């Protein structure tokens, strides 16, 4: 990949159901169509519900070619993207994005960041209108982890690391992938010049009257992630932190039951590099918090 040349082709994956397809049609596809310095974008829509077809629009909109794939069963976030990777086999890199709006320089800025050297495993775009307060090194762009809402991944790294860990189902698999990148010698970069408008439920839709998938899966996976990297001690600390949250007792009970079920079939992560050497990157600073806050540093 050359940083300053026009990019010939890029693969973009978006896992989507009939609930989000309108946003894909009205926001994502038009915004991909306005990307500068990119000649062709291959958008693969992964129908994670597995039933029927959800995209009935044109197969080509400007520079964007669109195809839909499904596995005839429900897929978690990681499994969906692993499936897309196996199906498409993108050459150098690929972009994962939620249905949202990519600013016109987003793809090219991410590609430039990824092309800086072969050690870059993942590049994360900056989310607006509410920027994530996550810490990152302003010179190198290095960040502890990258959000799966809009990330570009080096195909070599993804292949070597066997993609996402499908045990997560959804939420926190992006943190896990980032940590495995650091442990296998790849870097995770935050590129603030690449902008992705993301109208998340946390800022724009969640009601206080119910729990959402994010609450459940990110809580269970927080414990899983802690166990995977920090063993029994990590698990114990995570459970204690979770118990101190404001969630109701019955919610906590259900999450802990779900964790018990997962615990029976998962192992600790066997890493070659001691985590202590990467303590500025692989860390848990609170419940579901894997970074310091930018303003507090």
């Amino acid at each position, binding site marked *: 990949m050359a940083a300053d040349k026009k990019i010939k082709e890029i693969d973009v994956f978006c896992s989507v*159901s009939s609930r989000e397809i*309108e*946003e894909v049609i*009205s*926001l994502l596809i*038009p915004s991909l169509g306005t990307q500068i310095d990119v000649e062709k974008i291959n958008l693969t829509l992964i129908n994670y*519900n597995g039933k029927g077809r959800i995209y009935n629009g044109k197969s080509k909109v400007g520079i964007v070619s669109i195809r839909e794939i499904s596995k005839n069963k*429900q897929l978690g976030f990681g499994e969906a993207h692993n499936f897309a990777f196996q199906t498409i086999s993108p050459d150098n890199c690929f972009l994962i994005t939620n249905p949202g*709006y990519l*600013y016109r*320089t987003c793809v090219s800025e991410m590609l430039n960041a990824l092309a800086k050297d072969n050690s870059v495993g993942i590049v994360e775009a900056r989310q*607006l*209108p*509410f*920027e994530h*307060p996550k810490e990152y090194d302003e010179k190198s762009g290095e960040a502890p982890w990258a959000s799966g809402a809009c990330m570009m991944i080096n195909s070599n790294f993804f292949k070597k690391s066997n993609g996402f860990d499908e045990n997560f189902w*959804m939420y926190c698999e992006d943190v896990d992938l980032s940590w495995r990148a650091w442990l296998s010698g790849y870097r995770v970069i935050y590129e*603030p*010049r690449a*902008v992705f*408008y993301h*109208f998340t439920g946390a*800022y*724009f839709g969640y*009601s*206080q*009257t*119910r*729990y*959402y*998938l994010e*609450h*459940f*899966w990110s809580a269970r996976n927080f414990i899983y992630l802690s166990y995977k990297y920090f063993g029994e001690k990590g698990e114990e600390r995570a459970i204690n932190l979770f118990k101190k949250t404001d969630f*109701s*007792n*019955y*919610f906590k009970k*259900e999450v802990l039951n*779900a964790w018990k079920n997962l615990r029976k079939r998962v192992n600790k992560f066997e890493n070659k590099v001691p985590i202590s050497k990467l303590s500025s990157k692989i860390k848990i600073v609170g419940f579901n918090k894997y970074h310091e806050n930018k*303003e*507090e540093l």
Partner: protein
Amino acid sequence: MKTGIYCLCRDKETIVRLEKETKRYSFKDINFITGPDYFTFLRNIIENDEYDYSLVIHDDVIMPINMLERIESAIKKADATFGHQKWGVLGNAGISYLNNEAVTFIRDPHTSLIPYNTVPIPVVHIDGNTLLLNIKNIQCSKVEIPKSLTGFHLYDFVLVSEMYKKGLVAAIDPSLYVYHKSGGNQKDFDKVKQSLGFTSYIKDNYINHAFYTINGLVEIENDIKYLPEPFSNKRSDFYVLIEKVVNKLDFAKKKKELVIVVRTQLGRLNYLKRLLDSIKMGVATKDNNLSLGVVLSINNSLLNGKEIDDIYLALIKEYPEINLKLLRQKKVEGYYPRVTSLNNAVEQIEFKNDSYIWIVDDDDFIFPSALTTLVPLLQPSSIIIGEAIRFDEKWDSENSVPSNSKAINDHFNSQYYFKNVFGDNYVPISAVFYPLDVLKDILSNYELKGDYYEDYAIFLLAQNLKNTIYYPVKMVGVSYHGKNTVMEKDRSHWDYSLVTFISEAVNKGIVKKWVYDLCKSREPMEKQLIEYRMRLQRWCHVFKIAKPFIKLARKFGFLKQAK
């Protein structure tokens, strides 16, 4: 139109007393009943009633002597607002669908404030003291009160829930104002909300664990099976169910026109393009019933006519999705180009009836949620306010995105809009949808001589013309980037503008004497609050310096984390 009145009485003595009392005030044919619990009582009416409408009241409700006329008015208003076949029950107190706040058109031991007038408001909970049932709609839609439930509490919640399940709206209206002599029994209510019957009803129907009611938040231990087993759930989110019904009502489906008037000098294109990008995102997700126009209203530009034309043509090319118009500034009188650009817009743009105007500056940006959530709720004759979030931003490139952006915590909170009357601005101009006639009225009948604080002046003057409805929906981002007018050091423009505007408001009689007296009695409290906030701010940097030391102390166990 046949209308019956039912009153469930606690005993026979009460019936005797009430029969005598009501006859004195010419209320005829009230059906006084004693014996059944409230669920059974309502079920019987719903299943067997032959009236078109039935008013169901508690035995401690005092109705106005002209209640029958009021009922007729309530029915007419509900028919006109929602559509004749779309409403199931009207009441006089409940939790507003708009912002989950209690609204009470009653007098009771908790409330003695005289309420305002409005169109019927959809609710997520209704107080059972007075219920006007649309019997024909209820029977046609086959609304049923579950037989498993009995007692004297939460029947109103279940009634509303069953209405929405069948696509009928529940609403409240001031036409049904009454004096409810009892404030209810909170202890009994708290017991019932945890009863097996009620919690089973919730678990069978909804995934929510918290419900807003007029008696406070009801929290139950619901199950969360829908989370570990995604996509397989058959129960609904109570509030999403309600939203779906409300969005099908006549007022929500009515075609609306919204014109975004952008005040710009065309001198800072990267800010303007950020705004247009945000509008583009809004256009992509907006309601189909909304006709949206965007007008660039030139405000004291330093550019010449050709330069303006060139930029406008380039923008039209870049934003084909947006219906973009250019409005040159006709003339600038004195020092008030911003007000003049508004005047130009209101005078020159061809609006349809019932249009709303959204005035934004070119360094603001909109949230698409304003178009998807607020627009279906636009009601005739109301001024609509949403939330304005302030962003501290840095811009160091020609890109139309800030290089750094941080939301500031103390955003403009729409529910405090009324504090404007204390002399400070709480509502940025971009956080308001103004009905066109309100703006026209203000700009033609008041002398707006000044240019700063014009947002404050317009909002203050508008209060005399229409009711304001606030929604806790993110509407607009207001950028602080070092080049805003609010950061200008010379405050003289501001001071002269403010005094001129307020002088106009005072001399045109904006505030009525009794409102003034009411506010005056609250002023010491407001001052105390302001002083308290200032004291906190003074200590703010001390806390900032101390923060790393506190963190270290916590880390090494010298200080415990407060729970």
